[in-house]
């Protein structure tokens, strides 16, 4: 792998950048791998990367129906935070956030992790109490967060309207080391690092069947032929149900559309990420200058990657109320992604009824921020059979009534 640096760019510039090599190889699949990961999104690629890096398992293929990073990894609003309430969530998201801190250096690919800080606004008494509760929990979970008053909110976000006629801003939960990253770069950086370890990333290859023997997975059928494996990881977000069906089990998931939008780019005016859950909106400003805005999910099953416009309306009017200066900015582009939602809105990282087959899904609206932690835990689970990071997120929790419900602290998982 050719090392990336300013020096390398300068050297290449002298020969008009004709010397750059491929960021990742484009191989044909081998007959057999130790591990196959289905899905070359952030979670799948990170799982492969940590299998190689932490456990020396490098005979790995990552199979992707479309293009790597082309699903929700490249469609989300790139918020990274770990100020979750429940222990298992705080653990995995904080692990992820910590890994994000050093990811550019680790991957030798600038993923532009920007720990600019995340505020979750409290606009009702109920939210104040919810976030104060989260702050207390976070302190014990090793997640650095802090309750701040309205004056500090205004200092951090000068464009905010503290006293809207409907919901005045009463304070907020502040995570200073939360922030954003460049979503595509996360996928590309992991892909490049996996490829450099000798792993095969096989794009444009659809899995058409999962083969098993005596209750254990032995391989997959694909549009590029049959491939054998000892272990299989299914990491395909919205399409998990279809893959699980091939593997002979069912998942408690539903696929719905989630929407987002960006404004035209303007000069820097907002340095932190703001989430306003009472009015259902969140916003940050990208390095390009676009205001990046997250919307809500539809209530019905949908695989079209298009959502209903009224959610965009609700989000935008909430944000115009919260940040009145955006009223005369313009929406440049809106898009949708298909997210897989579980019964408690928390993910599933688990063994499955099929031996050697593992599932990572159900991230709903909040998966991007978890990518490194999810990959780390999933790799541990697949390599060793157990991971404290993933333990609580097992499939059987629904049967036991042991939910991981994050909505309780007035928070929603974005």
């Amino acid at each position: 792998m050719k090392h990336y640096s300013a020096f390398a760019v300068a050297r290449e510039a002298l020969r008009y950048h004709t010397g750059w090599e491929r960021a990742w190889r484009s191989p044909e699949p081998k007959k057999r791998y130790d591990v196959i990961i289905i899905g070359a999104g952030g979670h799948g690629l990170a799982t492969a990367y940590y299998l190689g890096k932490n456990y020396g398992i490098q005979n790995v293929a990552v199979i992707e129906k479309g293009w790597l990073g082309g699903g929700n990894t490249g469609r989300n609003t790139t918020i990274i935070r770990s100020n979750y309430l429940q222990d298992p969530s705080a653990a995995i998201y904080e692990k992820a956030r910590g890994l994000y801190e050093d990811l550019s250096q680790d991957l030798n690919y600038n993923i532009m992790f920007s720990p600019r800080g995340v505020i979750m606004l409290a606009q009702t008494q109920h939210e104040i109490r919810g976030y104060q509760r989260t702050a207390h929990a976070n302190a014990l979970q090793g997640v650095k967060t802090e309750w701040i008053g309205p004056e500090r909110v205004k200092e951090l976000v000068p464009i905010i309207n503290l006293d809207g006629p409907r919901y005045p801003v009463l304070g907020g939960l502040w995570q200073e080391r939360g922030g954003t990253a460049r979503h595509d770069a996360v996928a590309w950086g992991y892909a490049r690092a996996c490829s450099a370890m000798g792993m095969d990333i096989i794009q444009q290859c659809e899995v058409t069947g999962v083969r098993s023997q005596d209750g254990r997975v032995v391989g997959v059928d694909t549009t590029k032929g049959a491939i054998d494996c000892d272990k299989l990881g299914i990491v395909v977000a919205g399409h998990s149900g279809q893959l699980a069906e091939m593997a002979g089990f069912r998942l408690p998931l539903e696929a719905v559309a989630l929407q987002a939008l960006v404004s035209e780019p303007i000069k820097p005016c907002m340095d932190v990420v703001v989430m306003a859950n009472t009015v259902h909106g969140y916003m940050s400003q990208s390095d390009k200058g676009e205001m990046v805005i997250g919307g809500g999910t539809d209530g019905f099953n949908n695989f079209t990657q298009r959502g209903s416009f009224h959610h965009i309306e609700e989000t935008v009017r909430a944000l115009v109320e919260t940040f009145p200066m955006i009223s005369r900015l313009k929406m440049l582009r809106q898009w949708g992604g298909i997210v897989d939602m579980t019964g408690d809105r928390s993910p599933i990282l688990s063994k499955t009824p099929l031996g050697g087959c593992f599932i990572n899904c159900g991230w709903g609206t909040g998966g991007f921020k978890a990518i490194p932690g999810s990959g780390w835990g999933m790799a541990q689970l697949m390599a060793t059979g157990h991971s404290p990071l993933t333990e609580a997120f097992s499939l059987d929790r629904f049967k036991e009534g042991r939910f991981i419900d994050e909505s309780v602290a007035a928070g929603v998982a974005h």
Partner: protein
Amino acid sequence: MSTRLAKQGRLIDRSKKVTFTFNGTSMQGYEGDTLASALLANDQMMVGRSFKYHRPRGVVASGAEEPNALVGLGQGNRFEPNQRATTTELFNGLTAISQNHWPSLEHDIGAVNTAFARFLPAGFYYKTFIHPKPFWKHVYEPFIRQSAGLGKAPDKDSRDADTYEHFYAFTDVLVIGGGVAGLQAAKAAAASGAKVLLIEQSAYWGGRAPVDGGTVNDEPVDKFVEQLVSELETMDNVSMRSRCMGAGVYDHGYVLGYERLTDHTPGVQGPRHRLWRIRAKQIVTATGAIERPLSFAGNDVPGVMLASAMRDYAVNWGVNPGERVIVATNNDDAYRTAITLKQAGVDVLRIVDARATAGPLAEEARQLGIRVDPGKAIAKVKGGKRVKKVAICNQEGVGGAREEVEADAVAMSGGWSPVVHMWSHCGGKLTWDDANAFFRPDPSRPPLGANGEGFVLAAGASNGALVLGDVLTDAHAVGKAAAKAAGFKPKNIKAPVGETTAEAPMEAVWLMPANAEIQLRMKSWLDFQNDVKVSDVQLAAREGYESVEHTKRYTTLGMATDQGKLSNINGLAILADALESEIPKVGTTTFRPPYTPISMGAIGGEARGEVFQPIRQTPMHNWHDRNGADWEPVGHWRRTYAYVRPGESVHDAVNREVKNTRDNLGLLDASTLGKLIVKGPDAGKFLDIMYTNMMSTLIVGKCRYGLMCSENGFLIDDGVVARIDKDTWLCHTTTGGAERIHGHMEEWLQTEWWDWKVYVANVTEQYAQVAVVGPNARKVLEKLNAQAGGGMDLSKEALPFMEWRDGKIGEFDARAYRISFSGELSYEIAVPASQGQAFWDALFEAGQEFGVMPYGTECLHILRAEKGFIMIGDETDGTVIPQDLGLHWALSKKKEDYLGKRAHSRSHMADPERWKLVGLETVDGSVLPDGAYAVGEGVNANGQRNMIGRVTSTYFSANLGKGIAMGLIKHGPDRMGEIVEFPGTDGKTYKAKIVDPIFFDKDGEKQNV
């Protein structure tokens, strides 16, 4: 030099001068000008700076596709960044500033980037800025952010001075685009009797046709447009809106129309924008086509313009973009520009035609004295802030043997691309047309509507028909087809006959010259705004970013504010070539709404300020407001948190209310509590399922406190249920619970037990409900009775605890419930809402001698906490079951089934390790922090401190003079008297003793008097 021509200018009124400013300089234009045409008329060639390299940028187009001429428009509360000059109608007093430069447009420090452009290829930032780690946040990123971004941000405190609105429209056929195709399609559809709505983004009808010329039915096309417009205007079933853009097509025939009402007349009364939410059975997209630039070195220098745009400026606005013009093309259409300019007196130096042989229009050009050079290409345009010289070479080859010509403007045409956005937004597929080198709608794969059939049809140029005659024939047929698909019988009228001039085929030219050397490719722009060049796309392909989505994201091609209207196809072609593939195999990126950016204000519509969201008000709302209410939003309701007197803090007010209610008399507006009537022969059976308690056995005249769980076992609501008669119960819900629980009941009744005879009605707002609470509660009510002859006996004997009566209290028809959420003597009294204020006033007046004070929700909370009563939303959070709260007594053992019963038997819910409700008292009497967690020994497998419980409610009790709290603690009820530790976020650790949650009047003597 760009100037105003002596003649021409069909859209301007030369008798009406308009004054405006650009970067503080006063300029003049005419009514009918766009800001772009007026700037050009004032020889303002450079109008902005590009995104990445801060290169000079001039007007390149004349419409919505413009990537360069973006300005900050207006001032103060009407300032708007990134407004396209080409679609901004000029008005007196307009102020515009150019963007993305410092300190000025002419002298921009950021332009240093252009000198380093070679070191800043596509994606350079992924390879650099990696070390040292802290530099990204503190050095690199702030620098990049300052350099990027386009328009100035509006002032942080600015408040939009304008208003916005929405409008719902319904039509059989919606035609998007008011060019000749749209007009003709509308007419053909309307002839069937179908209701037609025709929307056009610009201020005028006819689109490009009047500029391009030609005849229809042997008359000049502008006459034809005029007649057609006036004909449509007289038809009752046709509505026409100009300045209304089709912004997006969504599922099931939903279309957004973006109408700009006062952008051209700011300050005029009425909304600025109106967002149309249109439902159409069929949509005709007649959105025309957009000309493509040619990729040659220096094609981004101000003065290089689309050939059609140059023609528009001349014909529509009488503007001559240059005095010495070179036309570069791969098709015949650009010859029209050359001819038009020449006829207007402009010196057209030559036509550089990449094709080996020119078409029939070449002869006409030559006759006018224009030199035509077939097989030639532009090697390079020279000049910094405006075109100075043009180097011409052979199209074949690498760009050697150049001839340099002095010129000040270049018109370029790389062919046309149909505007397929409206077709594609909702899933319509495209097909590649090799002859014209463009994607056009594939009629066999349209977007599908609710009935599974296609609901969008493309007409005219947006369907790939580029010649006037073809456009009209196509549009006529499509209009009829749309009417038919909408369920109407099209009339068999004849299509107008448009002129069809002979043209030679265009030739796809994706790079000029064909094998341009790298130095040229690094200067050949694809995306003018984002500074993406041919070499960047080639680099992306080389590095493995092969998918069109990868290339787009890696290079930012097509991600600018024009969303690739000019750059996408050219970029795709370069990518396909680099991958040794074909354009249709590489495919397009996804077309997403909106077509051009639309204002956030319009999307929000009227929902701002006072009507941002509904605020639900009780009948006594205004009284509370006048009497110091500190408001608390509870759902959409507003409730009084406390009544703050002058000079008092909110905290003081709460303490005063708490003491007074226990000592004297308090009034609470309880109108927000939900009230549901449940009636029918099966109502008792039904309520037994809804509640965990037994409600069917409740005796008429009595009340019972009930709990509701979800099917998943968690507590969702509570409240007092009263039995009204044999078949009728009245169920109280929490504030904000009325609609939710009503819906919950209806859901089970309609979808599970639909054969049960039960009706439910929500009568919450029929009543104003007042809690009359405190030792003097009975006295004040009896005084009202004494004053006005009310007959209700409110004595302990006549109305015992947990019973209700109907009757008259004072002069009011009332229902009194003898229930208490405070542990005091308490009556909750419901009167008709229309009498609520009068009743409240009467109580307040009569209560003066008894020390009456109104109290708010915080006092209510403290009073109930002193009594150890749980509160839905405090003690519960969606994860708590009745067993956690010691409410086993409310879980009927006799009933076989109720919602939540099965769930409670799952292993985790029956787990003895669950945290249970207890009271908590700090050892020093201080108040425990809200939301604090109790810690046990050690850490868990993830290194987190082990937690053993948490605070659910915590208050200062003015009655007890100390902090009291409730919480859920592991094994709590078995650990009475033990001390547990709660680390605060303030660095302190709070120690609290586990106690009985009932802090006050444990035997309940106060309420039973």
